[in-house]
């Protein structure tokens, strides 16, 4: 059998981010895979040590272009813990709203990319069309489509008044209607999609645990871990159940994300309706001192920030562990044995965000 090494990336139309997978092929079957990261290291951890700790919010927000709000939120949670700031309740609910908005948009983006990697262009366009509705809500409420910049230390910068909340609710319902009528049936029933995803990229529950998989990747294998259960922001008040699938294949991971989109819509509507009146921002006087750890659930999984301050304007150390970084090792289990044609689908099924990974 002919053995070929195919460089899948670092620049490849299927994976628009720079990760390289050196695929060892025997004819069309993948027998070995070697992920190589490190193409876009930006030194954000170091930059965060050099900048004012308040400005770091905007830097951390730009670690990832898709789940930016949640990065900002994680940073703020940690910074608030260090400066002993109590975030007003209204701000916490708003944070839930925006982070779910972020998650919805991320999952839809991913579902679109998945459809594209399967060559299902019309579904891709349809999903991104639905995503446009979410981006409109983002622009309406936060002022920007993707990088919302609404979360700062001490609360949030913008409020959502009653009128806007009503409008948002209307748009969310329209969005759900669109999902129900055009996208969900195709994702759930289309035989060509199932043929491409069912049984591809198997990851068992034990492997997911041992390899430290997080987020939908582990939930697709039946590991019920969702950091939102810890109840940061206002998740405790809003309340939710993690979405878990047990099959462990690419299709299961797809279903986890698709179901989470629906869950997000519910959470956003709940957060808006439960939101109490009051302040949205408090003054932050202190300087970060001591250590803190903050964890949140990003669309791709658990995001961990570790802070260490010494009472000055700057942080002594900021450590960021992103979910994709934890999920990359699972590729080594999922890819060998699959067909070359399934590589894009399987690789995408962990929703790799390389910009996150490299920081």
């Amino acid at each position, binding site marked *: 059998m002919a053995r070929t090494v195919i460089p899948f990336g670092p620049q490849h139309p299927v994976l628009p981010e720079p990760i390289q997978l050196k695929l060892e092929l025997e004819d069309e079957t993948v027998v070995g895979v070697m992920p190589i990261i490190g193409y876009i290291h930006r030194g954000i951890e170091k930059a965060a040590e050099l*900048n004012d700790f*308040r*400005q*770091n*919010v*905007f*830097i951390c927000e*730009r670690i990832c272009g898709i789940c930016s709000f949640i990065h900002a939120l994680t940073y703020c949670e940690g910074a608030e813990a260090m400066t002993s700031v109590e975030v007003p309740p209204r701000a916490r609910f708003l944070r839930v709203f925006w982070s779910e908005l972020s998650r919805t948009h991320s999952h839809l983006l991913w579902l679109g990319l998945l459809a594209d990697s399967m060559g*299902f262009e*019309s*579904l891709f366009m*349809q999903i991104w*069309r639905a995503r*446009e509705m979410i981006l*409109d809500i983002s*622009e*309406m409420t936060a*002022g*920007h489509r993707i*990088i919302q*910049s609404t979360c700062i230390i001490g609360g949030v*910068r*913008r409020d959502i008044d009653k009128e806007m909340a009503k409008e948002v609710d209307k748009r969310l319902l329209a969005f759900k209607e669109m999902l129900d009528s*055009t996208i969900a*049936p*195709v994702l759930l*029933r*289309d*035989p*060509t999609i199932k043929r491409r995803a069912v049984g591809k990229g198997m990851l068992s529950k034990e492997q997911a645990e041992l390899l430290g998989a997080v987020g939908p990747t582990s939930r697709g294998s039946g590991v019920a871990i969702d950091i939102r259960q810890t109840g940061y922001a206002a998740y405790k008040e809003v309340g939710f159940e993690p979405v878990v699938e047990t099959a462990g294949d690419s299709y299961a991971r797809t279903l986890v994300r698709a179901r989470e989109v629906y869950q997000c819509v519910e959470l956003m509507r709940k957060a808006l309706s439960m939101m109490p009146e009051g302040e949205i921002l408090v003054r932050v006087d202190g300087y970060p001192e001591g250590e803190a750890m903050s964890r949140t659930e990003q669309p791709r999984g658990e995001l961990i920030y570790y802070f260490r301050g010494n009472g000055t304007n700057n942080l002594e150390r900021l450590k960021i562990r992103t979910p994709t970084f934890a999920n990359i090792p699972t590729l080594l289990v999922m890819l060998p044995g699959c067909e070359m044609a399934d590589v894009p689908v399987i690789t995408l099924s962990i929703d790799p965000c390389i910009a996150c990974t490299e920081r």
Partner: protein
Amino acid sequence: MPWMFPTIWKNLFSRPVTRRYPFKDIREPFPGYRGKIYFDTNKCDLCGDCARVCPAEAIEVDSENKQIKYYPFRCIYCGTCVETCLQGAITQDEHYSPPNTEKIEELYKIEA
């Protein structure tokens, strides 16, 4: 396969949802969009707060020469300077700043 058919059939006979940006049918941005940054040279008192809070170091205040340098290609349009300015000298409108072929910088001469 048939589950996608109604959607594409409907799309085929309805108006496309994309727009010929920036030539035709431009949608007005939502109120509150964070777009271009302007400095009001009459109001500015060269305190330099904006330069200090700017996370991207896109603003440089030169109090000796009484001028402000603004780098739109560094700016991340977070709007922190607008919130910070006590004089209300910085404003942000609701339009995207246009693309450009070179990295320009804007110079504001402060009169006061």
